[in-house]
């Protein structure tokens, strides 16, 4: 199993979720995060003049998948979240030792929603 952490533009969350469900990938955890990358910060209006914001709001999607589905998910997210401008985000892939479903105590890939 692999865990995908995808940091994307907040406004792309809907498109990414829909594209993943179309491939049968239903489970995900979403958090609001702030971060920076090549896009760096932006300037916002103060009462007179402006101030810099160094960390921009993004959305982080976390999902755990079977190894063979991982590449499909990555391709799907890239396609759905891409604008071509700096600030589209990053995807990280991590190995996962095990997974448990709280309701049934099942473990392993059988816990992954959509399976």
């Amino acid at each position: 199993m692999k865990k995908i952490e995808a940091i994307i533009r907040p406004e792309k969350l809907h498109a990414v979720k829909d594209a993943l469900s179309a491939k049968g990938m239903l489970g995900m955890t979403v958090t609001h995060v702030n971060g920076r990358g090549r896009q760096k910060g932006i300037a916002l209006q103060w009462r007179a003049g402006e101030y810099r914001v160094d960390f921009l709001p993004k959305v982080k999607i976390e999902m755990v998948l079977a190894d063979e589905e991982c590449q499909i998910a990555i391709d799907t997210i890239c396609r759905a979240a891409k604008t071509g401008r700096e600030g589209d985000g990053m995807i990280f892939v991590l190995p996962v030792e095990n997974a448990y479903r709280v309701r049934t105590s099942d473990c392993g890939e059988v816990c992954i929603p959509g399976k």
Partner: protein
Amino acid sequence: MNSGDTAWLLTSTALVLLMTPALAFFYGGMVRRKNLLSTIMMSFTILCMVSVLWIIYGYTMTFGPDVRGLVGNLSWFGLTGVGQDPSSVYAVTVPHLAFVAFQATFAIITVALWTGAVVERIKFGSLLAFAALWFTLVYCPVAHWVWGNGGWLAQLGVLDFAGGTVVHVNAGISALALAMVLGPRMGFKEGESMEPNNIPFVVLGAALLWFGWFGFNAGSALTAGGLASTAFIATNTSAAAAGFTWMILGWIHRRPSVLGAATGAVVGLVAITPAAGFVPVWAAIPIGAIASIISYYVMVWRAKANRVDESLDVFACHGVGGTWGALATGIFATTTVNSAGSGLLDGNWKQILVQLAAITATMAYAFVVSWLLARALKATMGLRVKEEEESVGLDISQHGETAYGGVS
């Protein structure tokens, strides 16, 4: 005794009282989220403290029988002899106690105004100590000079309808002095961004200030009639003109910001304060619009110079807006509105000099006394919180609370 006047003055008193919690939200929304409660608490506690000091000795020091034009004596200590019958010199158609209550709300908000300069780093105990001393040694005497029977600026003929010098110039210049002694917030010199935590709170605060300001200005007519009506519509017009102008200035720079429009409206309210019951209604448009232009560029300059961390620009809003308003009163006042005052447009150019004298005297006195008080407190009890208390935020370090607690 006039029941209409009494009803209006009591209503106005409640309106002005609301302005202090409104100010708490106006300021609270502009600080970082770790200091939201502490900023709100400053205004709220000052409301409690000054209300009590006012009836004990504040009223008599401000409005009691005159001592050499400088301050009231203590013969009305604890409101002795101040009762349900009208005063013979102040608001003669309403109970004396109604006037006491109305004026209490002015003292409260003036003390709360300068807290915008010291947010996010001042020790709470020192803030209260400074507030009590400032109220006693700055607010009461200056209010007596302008509004007290026999006050030296009143005798000079200064026109200050609802507190341009007493409230706004006074609080604005004191804010500057206090911020200079206190020093900047950590990260200020390095240009760290100080993000406002809740701009809707700022707008809510500005809107409630606007609403309360009808009591502030129209209530200052002290009667319920034509003069109150003039002040009422002039107040609304100036706020609107200034809010709109500030929005345009922001737009020229980049975007029409909400924070800017809310700030502009407050600056317009400040500027019309001394003028509201002396000038024709049309004059409220230039008074408000010009106030925004001047305050805006003072704020831009303050931010560029980056020297004094007068954090929420109390001086740029109230000091500068109040100064312009006091001068504008000397320009636009006309006897067709109020027989008590005429200005440049009536051919009375001397009025501008009188206004200038009142502004200068207030600024000099308030700056020097505030600076000395701040230095004295700094040397004794200390003004600032410790570094780690500042980085964790004043909500937790000073009050043991957080604005948004819990995870569910």
